[in-house]
């Protein structure tokens, strides 16, 4: 395994690791607030749940962008 492949492998691992930090924190905060809202007002649980799912999908997309870059780098390895 030459130097280029080694660096690319390192980059792939770093991309995936760092890409999950921010969205995970954001999703945790959003879910916590949603649960507080449901606990305070159980009758709007349905609307809160839908909004929460959509917000989670937004944040998930940011990690997915990182995953795409990781795949593209992986294809160039070796």
């Amino acid at each position, binding site marked *: 395994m030459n130097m280029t492949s080694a660096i690319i492998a390192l980059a792939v691992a770093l991309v995936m690791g760092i890409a999950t930090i921010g969205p995970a924190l954001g999703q945790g905060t959003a879910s916590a607030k949603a649960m507080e809202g449901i606990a305070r007002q159980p009758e709007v649980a349905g609307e809160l749940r839908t909004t929460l*799912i*959509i917000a989670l*999908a*937004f944040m998930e*997309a940011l990690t*997915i*962008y990182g995953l795409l870059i990781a*795949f*593209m780098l992986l294809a160039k390895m070796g």
Partner: protein
Amino acid sequence: MEEAKVLFTIFGLEVTGHVTTMWGIMLFMFLVFVVATRKLDKVPGRFQCMVEYTVEALLNFFSGIMGREQARRYFPLLATLFLFILISNWSGLLPFAGHVEGFRPPTSTLSVTAGLAVIAFVATQIAGFREKGLGYLKSFFQPFFIMFPLNLIEELVRPLSLSLRLFGNIFGEEMVVVVLLSMAPYFAPIPMQLLGILFGFIQALVFTTLTAIYISSATADAH
């Protein structure tokens, strides 16, 4: 990401496994709706009831976002987007998907998701121009004149993020299943595929909800 295998060409356009699966899904949806609306009864039978329930649930969902009258107007586009994306996301879970040469989920290629995002983008612009005329261009200069570059960039990034989000989710799930299959066949991919059912539905919902929000914000303040 390896290139998809070209099966044959029509008039110089390459046809890959994704395109043939898309034709299959189109045929399936067409048949379902033709059979459901063949003999419309006042008291619906089971199949017609199921389809009516789907249509009504989607209409209520979009009315919650853009109001009843606008939801009715853009319902064909939004409901078709949702149902097509949903079925093609779930088609990756069927047996033989990805292994037989002509059968790959259409949304697992950037070409199809970019096409859908372009449709959503063009629909937003058309809706904005139809409601507000040339005042739609003026809305890019709201609230301050210097906001124009930011508004423009935001408008152009929307199809990019729509297509990449959908593509990344479906392609990523497929790739993870492939890797898990190489480790422990028959059992290891099962949790991933269960997640795939959930995420396929969520991604279809998010794509359509975002398109509805973009359309309703492009036609806002018109009446």
